[in-house]
């Protein structure tokens, strides 16, 4: 008779010695192997149905030409060639990279600085934490419309304030560079509260005795920040960096309501390019799907680079 192979790595040790007080698990053969997967199955099914399946289908559609979303003609790589030859695609990709660079850099720096400030023993600390988090709760449509009214050249609150102190009337949404700055600033305002909360959680996990020891050794606040806070916060910073990068590449809703991608495509990012192709009058579903695949690959590569850098930093 062949003995049954051990079900788990611990099993030989348990079987070798007497274990009168432990009841033998009443699993059927193989049950210990399958059980964890059964627990994972519901989530895997949902994830597969709503994430993996649409992703595969999106890639599939990128190989077809369709203007109705129902009748499709095989197009091979034509959609990829078409977006490659489309100036609007390259403009959207460039705009997206500019936006992501500005948004991510400012998000990380501001989140860390704000978290440090909000971690200090301030009067009204809870109030300020709530104030900075509040924009995260707003609908992107509301954010877009609200800032549109604030940034209008004539009658906008920002220009009214500027003019009240003798400043110029700025074309925030009409000049290409200023419009890009505006969407970065509004994106930062909307999201920085969320990243600050993550950074704050990271700060609070740092052992306070390190600061006490550093104080005893005569380290200044600045030295404590650079020597203790920042190095120990780096894993959290990497999380913020990855989340902000993904968020930046996916930016669309509030920008669409703020500038509509204008002026003259100056703030049209990749997601709007995809949206305009699929749901605008062009109805080029295949091209939109091809652009989605490209965006996916760009986000994936940036995320992997961030992740590998983070792991190497952790390892060292």
């Amino acid at each position, binding site marked *: 008779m*062949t003995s*049954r*192979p051990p079900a788990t790595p611990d099993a030989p040790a348990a079987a070798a010695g007497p274990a009168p007080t432990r009841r033998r698990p009443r699993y059927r*053969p*193989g049950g210990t192997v399958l059980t964890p997967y059964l627990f994972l199955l519901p989530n895997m099914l949902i994830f597969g149905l709503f994430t993996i*399946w649409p992703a*595969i*289908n999106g890639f*599939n*559609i990128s190989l*077809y030409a*369709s*203007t*109705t*979303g*129902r*009748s*499709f003609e095989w197009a091979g790589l034509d959609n990829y060639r078409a977006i490659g030859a489309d100036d609007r695609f390259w403009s959207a990709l460039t705009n997206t990279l500019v936006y992501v660079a500005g948004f991510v850099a400012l998000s990380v720096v501001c989140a860390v600085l704000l978290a440090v400030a909000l971690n200090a023993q301030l009067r009204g600390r809870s109030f300020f934490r709530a104030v900075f988090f509040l924009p995260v709760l707003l609908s992107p449509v509301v954010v877009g419309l609200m800032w*549109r009214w604030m940034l*209008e*050249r*004539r009658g906008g609150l920002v220009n009214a304030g500027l003019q009240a102190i003798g400043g110029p009337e700025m*074309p925030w*949404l*009409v000049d290409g560079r200023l*419009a890009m700055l505006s969407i970065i600033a509004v994106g930062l305002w909307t999201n920085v509260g969320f990243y600050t909360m993550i950074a704050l959680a990271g700060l609070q996990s740092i052992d306070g005795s390190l600061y006490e020891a550093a104080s005893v050794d005569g380290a200044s606040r600045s030295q404590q920040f650079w020597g203790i806070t920042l190095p120990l916060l780096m894993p959290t910073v990497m999380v913020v960096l990855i989340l902000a990068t993904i968020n930046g590449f996916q930016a669309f809703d509030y920008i*669409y309501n703020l*500038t*509509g*991608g*204008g*002026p*003259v*495509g100056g*703030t*049209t990012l990749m997601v*709007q390019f995809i949206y*305009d192709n699929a*749901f*605008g*009058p*062009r*109805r080029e579903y295949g091209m939109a799907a091809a652009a989605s695949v490209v965006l996916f690959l760009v986000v994936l590569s940036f995320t992997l680079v961030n992740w590998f850098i983070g792991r190497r930093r952790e390892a060292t």
Partner: protein
Amino acid sequence: MTRRLSTRTRLLALAPPLALVLASCAPGGTDSSGDPVEDDDGGTAGEATASVQELTREDVEGGSLNYLYFTDGPDQASTEELISAFEEEYGVTVNLEIVPFSDLETTLQTRLSGGQAPDVARITATAPFEGDLLDLTPYVGADYPETFIEGLRAPMQQGDQLVAVPSDLTMNGPFVNVEQFQEAGVDLPDPEDPWTWEEMMEAAASVQEAVGTEFAFALDKSGHRLSTVLSQNGTYLVDAETGVLDPDLATEALQALTSMIEDGSSPRDFWLDSGTRYAGANEVFLAQQVPVYLSGNWQVAQFEANAPFEWAAAPNPCMTECGGFPGGKFMAGFADTDEPELTALFLWWMNDTEQQRQFVDASNFLPTRADLVEDGVEYASRSEDMNVFLEDIPRTPEAAYASAYSPEFGAAATEFVEFYAQVVAGQLELPEAMEDLSSTLGD
């Protein structure tokens, strides 16, 4: 004895379900050839031939329809009233499903994909539903299109099939601030004798100077509205099938507007700060910051409700041509309907003379029927202004209808706005932009 499966065996075992998954994610699967769609009985929907004019309550009683609808506002109440009257007259049920305009086409395409198409829908173009629409010819007769004005007859048909009924017409045209014209001592235009572009510009500039408005002239940021200007100089973005823009005529047509935007007498910012989105200049007109505003008859109801000053519709200005640029909606049935006779009856009844008169009157729309256009409509409110638009219908060239109802128009209009926005931003000269646009549309 437990036998471990090799990796290759596992992969082979997974292959059939994986193949099934991949095969089922191949897009398509619906017949878009335009062939007749078989009904539940195995026949084609077009086989029934009862003329709707002959149908009685007994023929259709107990039937029901789903009507997918989007509303422009005031038309909803009159549609509901007409539906109630239809239900009472024929003993049937019509379920009105209202969706936002922006979701209309996606909703319809999705429902068609899932075999859940409504029986009837209000649509702006028939081209996206080619092969899906009910051929009305057996029910209303091949001569039925002649009921409607000439420009709308072609878009009612796909090949030799009659697939849609035009339910209302819109016409682009200008509005003037009467109080400002009077204050400036400038004569109002005569609806019987349209002004020229030069006369309109002169009048607008004189009023601006006398009254001190911020702008002289405004036009919505829209490829459709810009097409009015093209049409008045005898050129179009597209005809029924392809790009036909004459860049020289287009440059000549748009020169006056471009100069006004450049010198600040027409608003510039909203061409730039709304990106790819439509933007209307109605707020500028309502704020009395522009005496002449080119939009369309759909503004009448909201100006009536919101304008705190005296205003009037004005005839479209003429260049080499006169008239406005048309738009509008159609009612269409879907070939998959279980009630083709009732569907055809509903489309016919809703657009019969009395029903259409009631609908356009309540909604401040323009009629599509030739008899109503010829006889005129006495609107309950702002009838004089609505009839200014009505009088522009026969002045509008036939080519404008062909362009407006071309399946290519939507995408062409988007390109037009994008190129013109580059002119407004100073990135392109107008002639260069029109040349580029012409090349793009010709591709």
